[in-house]
């Protein structure tokens, strides 16, 4: 037996580590190609973005971002030349195309709608989910298993199947195209996921901690707050990210239930139309900016997430 083959049975061998590493890297590359392409397209000019064969190397331009944030009108060359000197970079880029900026676009208002609705519903879903999960975990709830299954079953239908009835209900209730309506809807959808995930995490926290706190003179609610919550942070963070990602990316409900003041980014971005078809650089810049909040949130919580996503299998 050669010495190089001797290895511990629980430590992976070097070869298997290398293979695993290669697979992970390959997977990461493949899944990042579309993201990279969106990012690159956001810095192309409209002609570059639709040129064939596709351009990998190109002269970067901010035209996509300018078009994303503004609305423009076409003018004659003479009119444009007669204007005073361009005041901003976007002015200049726009004028080169014989256009002038007419005003801001709806991108920021839609983006802010997305922020309010996604974070609002995530906060509600996680708060309600934590309390419900604690109840299911610690108390004898009559028909607990059936209730839990019912809660989960609300997730089994595709959103589009219930979108029309909800649309009609919302119209009656005056909730259509309102941020409140969307927050309630996303909360309702996410709370099932939150209850299930969080119940798993809270089951893992021994009851003795709360019992000790109650003996130490705390009420159950205070014990929950002081002892259970701090230990459930990992699970809460992981759950919050899942809920946020859903609410942030949700398209089907948004496209049906919002059209104006409460419209979120996902239905808005594809409607950014330039002259003679879709303005791909503007759509790509809108998408790039749209990715930032999730990215930041995930990076901020990555430690909790790493531990949380293994669902308690890897414990510290």
């Amino acid at each position, binding site marked *: 037996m050669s010495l190089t083959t001797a290895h511990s049975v629980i430590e992976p061998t070097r070869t298997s580590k290398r293979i695993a590493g290669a697979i992970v890297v390959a997977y990461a590359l493949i899944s990042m190609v579309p993201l990279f392409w969106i990012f690159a397209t956001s810095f192309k000019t409209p002609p570059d973005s639709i040129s064939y064969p596709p351009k990998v190397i190109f002269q970067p331009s901010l035209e996509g971002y300018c078009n994303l944030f503004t609305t423009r009108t076409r003018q004659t060359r003479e009119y444009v030349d007669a204007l005073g000197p361009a005041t901003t970079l976007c002015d200049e880029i726009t004028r080169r195309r014989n256009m002038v900026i007419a005003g801001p676009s709806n991108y920021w208002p839609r983006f802010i709608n997305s922020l309010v609705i996604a974070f609002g519903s995530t906060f509600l879903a996680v708060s309600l989910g934590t309390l419900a999960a604690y109840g299911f975990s610690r108390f004898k709830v009559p028909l607990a298993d059936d209730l839990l299954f019912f809660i989960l079953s609300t997730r089994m239908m595709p959103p589009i199947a219930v979108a029309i009835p909800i649309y009609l209900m919302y119209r009656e209730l005056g909730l259509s195209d309102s941020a409140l309506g969307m927050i309630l809807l996303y909360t309702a959808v996410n709370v099932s996921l939150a209850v299930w995930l969080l119940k798993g995490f809270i089951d893992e926290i*021994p009851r*003795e*901690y709360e*019992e*000790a*706190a*109650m*003996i*130490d*003179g*705390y*009420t159950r609610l*205070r014990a929950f707050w002081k*002892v259970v919550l*701090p*230990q459930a942070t990992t699970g809460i963070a992981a759950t919050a990210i899942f809920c946020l990602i859903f609410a942030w990316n949700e398209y089907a409900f948004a496209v049906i239930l919002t059209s104006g003041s409460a419209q979120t980014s996902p239905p808005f971005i594809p409607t950014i139309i330039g002259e003679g078809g879709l303005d791909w650089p503007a759509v790509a810049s809108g998408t790039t900016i749209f990715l930032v909040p999730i990215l930041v949130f995930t990076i901020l919580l990555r430690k909790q997430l790493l531990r949380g996503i293994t669902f308690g299998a890897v414990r510290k």
Partner: protein
Amino acid sequence: MAEVMLRGVAKSFGQTRAIEGLDLTIADGEFVVLLGPTGAGKTTTLRLVAGLERPDAGRVLIGGEDVTLAPPSARDVTFVFQQYSLYPHLSVYENLAFPLRSPARRMGKDEIKRRVEATAKLVRIDHKLESRATRLSGGEMQRVAIGRALVRQPAIYLMDEPLSSLDAKLRAEMRLELKRIQQELGATLLYVTHDQIEAMTMADRIGILKDGELIQIGTPRKIYTEPRNTHVATRLGQPAINLLPQGLLPDAGLPAGTKTVGARTEHLRIEKSANGQADGVVDWIEHLGDQNHLHVKLGDRKLITLSPPDTPLAPGDKVMIRYNNPLCFDADGNWLGGRAQ
């Protein structure tokens, strides 16, 4: 400190009867140890006193007040759990201060600091006050857990095998320490263990629990010398008492009705047989250093007793064995009270 009484307390979990008709009074300032095998209902008894379980029947009184329906926070008890004793997200200091910060007490900052530091000294953990609870060794955690109970003066301290995760040396130290602290504070203490040495050395009274029933309660001496039945007799004494059928050894003079003879080391006289007559054969000698365990074969039975380290006996030796005031039990295993001769 206060007197604690359980009156006819019963508790079942589904089909399992954890506690049945338990009557127990712990006097003010008394150290009572409940001794029993796993599943006997020791933890359940403590939880009933603490209010973490509601009894199905019976009453719990603390200081003369009926607290059967009171929540744990209203009972003024402390509890050292069998495991998971510390809040993992807090430092040692915060763990010790936690009970003092409760809404029920709301103690001032300086008073908390004073008490925490005094308690930390008492359980010898004052050098680790700033450590995270999860960074401690098992023994240190256990000491903090005991400290968290001692940091306030409740009506009764409840302790569930608090020393079980310690090594033998530390356990021996903590045993003495705990007894000393209890006497200093004049504390009422209900302590649960399956370790007979802890029970013998610390208890004012030992309660023997089996299958949810309190079989006997009394001073360690009394439980040891006058066990109510064979079960109680086997709980105490190292090596365990030898239960031999009547008639196996010459036993003239034992009380009428004796079916089982219980013989500990002090109840046996063993000598090397001189005239070829023999009751048994030395099978094997376990050397423990300060003493030996002598295994003697009596036909198809076996008897284990202590012998001095310089015993003249060797495996294969034939021996004569005589009873010396053994414990006698009837056909149901109940102690017959009287002694031989």
